């Protein structure tokens, strides 16, 4: 490695001034993508900025209406935050599928998002939860929905002077649950062939009042499929409504064929996963209503 400098700023202001120095700098959260990228010769920063000493980047907070997930907070910390894990079980499902226990001890939701892999597990779950990125740059702060933060495979919307500070999720309304499902040939330590994150809200009569369906690993970026959510809203999740969501998800998919699966297979599978994810979220809501 040709890293010449290691800096651990303790505040956002300090981080901004370090980032403003420009040059070939890389931000370090859990390092599970950055350090592997350096090892494999895909990255070669000369300066590393460790973000984990900035309180806003590691804090997890549950407010009255919103959840705040520091961009550098580890999957382990999020999974062991009982409030967040119980409010967003689908997001927890997704984070718990990333890598091994060792990787989860370090990797962050913010890093998974910035790395912008088409197959990232946490991104469809964040999109389903309507997560918004809080971004800080020289000209101040801006907010960007996660689905707009993704530009292409490995590419995000951050400018050189910008830093992803937090992910802000609306607190799920009563009768809401989320799910993340993926297909992998192995049960763990694998990368999604296809994945889906969904969030649905049912009223007391079982009518769907809100739904968001996101798909992963079947397009250059994870996608929000608005038509799939629309197919569910107003229904009681009857077979024809679910079939509409499945068809919309398949129509939105534009996967590549590679060693993990052909485009046709991925398109089929993402529909199957959407159907199962809807059923699972519905079961979670019903279980919550009985409890």
């Amino acid at each position, binding site marked *: 490695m040709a890293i010449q400098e*290691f800096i*651990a700023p303790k505040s956002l202001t300090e981080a901004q001034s370090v980032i403003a120095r420009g040059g070939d700098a890389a931000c370090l959260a859990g390092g599970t993508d950055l350090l592997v990228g350096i*090892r494999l010769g895909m990255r070669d920063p000369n300066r590393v900025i460790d973000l984990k000493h900035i309180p806003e980047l590691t804090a997890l907070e549950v407010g009255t209406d919103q959840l705040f997930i520091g961009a550098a907070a580890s999957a382990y910390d999020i999974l062991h935050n009982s409030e967040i894990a119980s409010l967003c079980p689908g997001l927890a499902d997704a984070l718990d599928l990333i*890598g*091994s226990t*060792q990787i989860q001890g*370090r990797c962050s939701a913010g890093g998974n998002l910035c790395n912008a892999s088409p197959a990232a597990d946490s991104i469809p779950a964040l999109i389903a939860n309507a997560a918004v990125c809080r971004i800080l740059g020289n000209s101040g702060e801006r907010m960007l929905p996660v689905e707009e933060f993704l530009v292409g495979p490995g590419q995000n919307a951050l400018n050189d002077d910008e830093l992803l500070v937090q992910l802000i999720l609306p607190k799920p309304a009563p009768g809401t649950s989320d799910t993340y499902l993926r297909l992998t040939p192995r049960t763990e*330590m694998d990368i999604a062939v296809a994945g889906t994150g969904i969030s649905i809200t049912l009223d007391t009569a079982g009518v769907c009042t809100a739904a968001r369906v996101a798909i992963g690993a079947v397009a250059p970026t994870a996608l929000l499929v608005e038509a799939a959510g629309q197919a569910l809203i107003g229904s009681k999740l009857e077979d024809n409504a679910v079939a509409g969501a499945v068809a919309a998800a398949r129509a939105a998919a534009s996967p590549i064929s590679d060693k993990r699966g052909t485009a046709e297979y991925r398109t089929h599978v993402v529909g199957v996963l959407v159907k199962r994810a809807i059923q699972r979220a519905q079961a979670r809501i019903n279980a919550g209503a009985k409890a």
Partner: protein
Amino acid sequence: MNTPLNKLPIQAVINGEPKMFLAAPGQILADVLRDELELIGTKIGCNTGDCGACSVLVNDRLVCSCLVLAAEVEGQSVQTIEGIADGAVLHPVQQKLLEHGGLQCGICTPGVVVAAKALLDSNPNPTEEQARYWLAGNLCRCTGYDKIIHAVLDAAKVIREGAAS
């Protein structure tokens, strides 16, 4: 191109003892443990976080030391395989791995011990499934895993009985 000039002085608690060492800004923790601190029980397998051989605990958190920069552990505590046994008395995980024959070539073993200890510290009564998932990031090419899992579950029993008595 890391000359001694840009090395950073790092202070950390290693296996319970305060230590100070020099690390290049890009040097990984696994290399510092082995080359600077002579703690060669930590093995380096893949160097990309896939195999778990270099598992250590940083502030009681299980991590791959090949995916941690040494500079990141400034002010933190690191526990390696050398800090697991109590003097000459093996940790139950170590003892049970021996009794069950849960190791052959031994390269993965330090990482398995550290990872299993971390599991039992947080959950002294894991199911077999929980133990298998927890240890999914510790690859072993010799044992086929069954003996490792049996040893870990047996060690859990020893720890629970010890806590009860």
